[in-house]
Every structure is written in structure tokens, then in C-alpha cells.
């Protein structure tokens, strides 16, 4: 009887270990495959050149440029908003109040809305509602902003990444010891002065983490930008807010599914995937490192 129990236990433990192994192996498999096939094709010419010969040759500079511009615009929108919301939740609102509860619930649910629904929202709200409103008010009804463009794509992504920024910022605010605030209040500081001079400087690292995570998420999402501004191919770079743009993730989708000759595009495709993966992983790695240092501080406090 005793031996039987031991045997089952060993089997069970091995099974759980095996599950871990499988998950890690899948990650290694994807990374390895992409690095092996994509690595040799990476070059300066690839990063800085224009696509040529029906996107089977040349580089992907327009897609890189578009991604960076998109993510920058998104950051400009989401970081102030997300940080302000987190400050309200943690510094201003009475804890346990109905409103705080409601905001948190909204955050959780916002994080769970499918990416494609964000795309529909961008189309229905930003382009068809706000865009045409702007056109009627400022451009005498001429089609200017009521069309897919980089501004609306960036704002759609900003709504998508809002929960990421708020949650990371809140965690950072929580890591600031209560005694710091009390000391500032005792010295006669107002609530905003405490936030501005004590709490925010202390939580810069956490806000940065949230920003990086949001950027890494935003750089990889394709579904929300499909109808709100990403273009299949453009001979020019986006210069105005109402220009369309090329984007790395969307470029991967296009090359994978719409290419007439998959074998010919494969080298370029793999290199593009490698570039996007390297970008998101580098960002995630920095975020993980910063966050673990914050958590250590939090545990110490």
C-alpha cells in the first residue's frame, strides 16, 4: 500500500514537471525556429531599405518607421491618462468606495475585450463618429479625418493598453511608503504637492514599466489597427496625423496570408518576425527587470 502511494506520487510530480517542460519547450521551439530562419537575412539593408519586387526583396524600413510612430503617438495618449487614473485610484479616492470598485471592474473588463472589438470600436467611434465630426467642424465636410489613419489607430491602441499602464502605475504608487506622504503632509504640503514632489518621483520606475509593457503590447497588436489605419503597402512614410502607415505586425500578416508566392517571401517574412519578436522581448525584458526591483523594494517596505 505504502509503495503504491509513493509510486503514484512520483508519477504525479513527474507529470507536473513534464507540463512545465512542454511549455518551456514550445517557447524555445518558436524562438529557435524564428532565429534560425530569420537570423541570416537580417542586415542593415533589410532594416533601412524599402520593400522591392512585390515585397520579396529589399527591406522593411517603412514598417519599422510606422510602428515607432504609431507607438509614440499611443504612448503620448495613454501614459498621462493612465497615470492620472492610477493617481486618482491610489492617492485621491477613498479606498473601498463604490467608484473605486467600479473603475477597477471596468479596468479588468477592458483588459478582457477582444482585440478585434477594439478595432470595430476604433472604426465606429474614432473614424465614423469623432472623425466625421472633426471634418464637419473644421474642414467644411471635406474628407480629412473621417478615414483610417495613424491618429485613430494610435488612439485605439491607447484604449487597449490603458489597463496595462494603470495597473503598473498603481503597483508603483503602492511601493511608496506611507510615511513619506505623512512626512510631506506634516510639513504642510497639499495633496497635489505630495503627489508631484513625493509620490511621482518615487514611482517613475514603475510608470516606466507600465509604459514599456504598453509599448510592447501595442507594437504587436494587429487586429485593432487593421481597419483603423494600417496599410498593405505605401510608397511614402506617414507625415501627417491623417496619413495611413505600414506596421510590422500587419506586414507579417500580409506577407503570410496575401503573398502570391509564399516560398519567395519566406526569408523576408522570417526576418520581419525575428525583428518584431526581438523588439517586444527586449521591451518585456526591461520591464520585468524594473518591476522585480520595485517588488523587492515593496517587500522591504
Amino acid at each position, binding site marked *: 500500500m505504502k509503495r503504491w*502511494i509513493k509510486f*503514484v*506520487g*512520483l508519477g*504525479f*510530480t513527474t507529470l*507536473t514537471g*513534464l*507540463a*512545465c517542460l512542454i*511549455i*518551456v519547450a514550445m*517557447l524555445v521551439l518558436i524562438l529557435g*525556429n524564428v532565429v534560425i530562419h530569420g537570423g541570416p537575412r537580417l542586415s542593415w539593408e533589410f532594416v533601412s531599405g524599402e520593400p522591392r519586387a512585390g515585397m520579396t526583396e529589399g527591406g522593411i524600413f517603412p514598417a519599422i518607421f510606422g510602428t515607432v510612430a504609431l507607438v509614440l503617438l499611443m504612448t503620448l495618449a495613454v501614459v498621462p491618462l493612465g497615470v*492620472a*487614473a492610477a493617481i486618482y*485610484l491610489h492617492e*485621491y479616492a477613498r479606498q473601498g468606495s463604490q467608484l473605486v470598485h*467600479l*473603475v477597477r*471592474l*471596468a*479596468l*479588468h*473588463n*477592458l*483588459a*478582457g*475585450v*477582444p*482585440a*478585434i*472589438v477594439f*478595432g*470595430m*470600436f476604433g472604426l465606429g*467611434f474614432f473614424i465614423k463618429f469623432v472623425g466625421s465630426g472633426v471634418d464637419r467642424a473644421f474642414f467644411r465636410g471635406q474628407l480629412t479625418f473621417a478615414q483610417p489613419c495613424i491618429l485613430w489607430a494610435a488612439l485605439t491602441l491607447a*484604449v487597449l493598453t*490603458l489597463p496595462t499602464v*494603470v495597473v503598473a502605475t498603481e503597483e508603483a504608487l503602492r511601493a511608496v511608503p506611507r510615511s513619506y506622504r505623512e512626512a510631506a*503632509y506634516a510639513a504642510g504640503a*497639499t*495633496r*497635489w504637492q505630495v503627489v508631484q514632489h513625493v509620490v511621482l518621483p518615487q514611482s517613475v520606475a514603475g510608470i516606466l514599466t507600465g509604459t514599456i509593457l504598453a509599448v*510592447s503590447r501595442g507594437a*504587436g*497588436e*494587429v*487586429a485593432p489597427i*487593421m481597419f483603423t489605419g494600417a496599410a498593405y503597402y505605401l510608397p511614402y512614410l506617414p507625415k501627417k496625423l491623417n496619413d495611413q502607415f505600414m506596421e510590422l*505586425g*500587419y506586414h*507579417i*500578416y500580409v506577407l*503570410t*496570408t496575401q503573398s502570391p508566392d*509564399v516560398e519567395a517571401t519566406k526569408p523576408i517574412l522570417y526576418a520581419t*518576425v525575428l525583428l*518584431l519578436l526581438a523588439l*517586444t522581448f527586449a521591451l518585456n525584458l526591461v520591464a520585468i527587470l524594473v518591476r522585480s526591483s520595485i517588488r523587492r523594494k515593496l517587500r522591504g517596505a
Partner: protein
Amino acid sequence: MDRPRNERLLLKGKPRIIEALLETAVRSSAFLVIAALALIFFFVAKEALPLLTSAEVHEEATLWTMLQAREGGGFVWQPASEKPKYSLPPLVVGTLKVTLVALLMAIPLAILAAIFTSEFAPQQLRELVKPAVEMLAGIPSVVIGFFALIVVATWLQEAFGFTFRLNAITAGIGLSLAVIPIVYTVAEDALSAVPQAFRDGSLALGANRWQTAWRVVLPAAMPGVFAGCVLGFGRAIGETMIVLMASGNAAMMSWNPAESFRSFSATIAAELGEVVYGSPHYHVLFFIGAFLFIITFLLNLAGHWYVGRLRARLEGKL
């Protein structure tokens, strides 16, 4: 944090208007979070509503005809043909088929791995597995879709000789890669939140470590583990790029996982770009979007309710 009681006295002579303005700004951004969710629902539902109300749309499709079999039998989704046919059952079957395959793979793997990291793994190994899962979560879904389409599909076809290169097994494997991190993270959090005293008590009574893990820790953390599954389900049903790229996108009424299919999310992604604004097809797609929104919304609510339940239970309030 509570205001100091003598605040009024301290603030004498300070620019109170700016203070008040800033407070308003900060508070309104919190309201904006709620507003964002409400706006998403409102604007998706607004474009979906004509399917139920507009006579013009009803000439092509009503909710009733979309669920009914056609004359002569069969369900067809052909919105772009001369006489558009909108039949939802093939999409329902496709969505459920791939979600089922993905969850059948992801849930056991993720929960077992979570048990391993929280109960059996030595510290160093834990520090290795958790970042690995975080990295998996960080892979953009378009990259997973690419991998499923280019690599996994080829491997599986060579191994099993599928008639359809792109099918629910290929897409399900890809989808499980997106679901595993969610289930794992929530389940691992729940297992780690079980107080050490539970384990100590069980071990002191003579149970060994696997008995403790299986019969004490896992049942105690059950609401949290279940929450992970529910949230994973929500992710699977709404995930777009992986399914769009690896499903074959053929709206077939078949439960066979080795055949191609078309899901709700992929239908929207594939068709919304070309559709005429305000056409019946446009409203049908938004109707599907609103439906996805409501389903994932309810799943999320349920998931977080279970997380709250776990917390209450472990704090002894339940």
C-alpha cells in the same frame, strides 16, 4: 489615504483653485476608464442594432433567417455573393471547435505547470519558468499565427496526413499558446496564495507532498484555478489573428477538428475591411462583434468574481 485633520489650516494662502483643477483632472481620467468601456459597448452595439430594427437590413437578413437552415437544407455563410447568405451556425461551430481544442490542451498543461512551480519546483527552477511564461505571453498573436500557419501546419500535415492543411488542430495549438499564460498566471497566483499552514498541517498528518498538493492545496485554491480557466476561455473565444491565419477560414458545418473552419473573430477581421459602410453585411459583422463583447464581458466578470471568492475564502470570510 486619509486627509490630515488640520488640512484646512495648513492650506491657508495656497493656490486652491489649481489644486481643485488638478483633482478634477485626475478624477475625470478615472471616469474615462469607465467611459471607455461604456463607449466601446455603445458604439459597437449602435452599429449592430439595425440588424434587429431596420427594414432595409431585414430584406437581406434577420436574426431568425441567420439561425435557420436554408430551403433545401444546409447552412451557408456567403455574404459577398449575388444573393448574400448569412448563416451563423457554421461560425458558432467553428468558434466552439477551435476554442475546445485550445482549452483541452492549454488547461491541463497550464494547471499542472502551475502546481509544479508553486508546490514542487526548487527556487531556481521557479525563477526560470515564470519569466518563460511571461515571455510566451509577450509573443504577439500575429507571430503565433505565423508560426502555426508556416511551421505547425506543415509538421502536422506531414505527421498525420490531414486533408486540410489548415484545421482546428493547427489553429487550436496556436491558440493554446495564447491561452496557457493566462491560465497559468492566475492558477499559480491562486496556489501560491494558499497559506503555508495548510501544507504544514497536511504534512504533519502524514500526507506526502503530492497528496498535499492534490488534495489540500489544489482544492483550497480551486476558485482561483477555475477563474484562470474562465479567463482563458474568454481569451480563446475572442482571439483573432491566430485563428484568422491558421483556420483556413472555410465556413463549414463540421465538428471534425481535422477540417477547416471559420470563427466569429476571424470573420470580422477578414470581412470588415472590404464591407460597404452601412450595408446589411456591415451591420451583421457589428452584431457578431457585439455578441463577442458581451460573451467576453460576462466571462471576465465571472473570472474576477471567482478570484474575489478565493480571496474571501483564504481570509476565512467564507
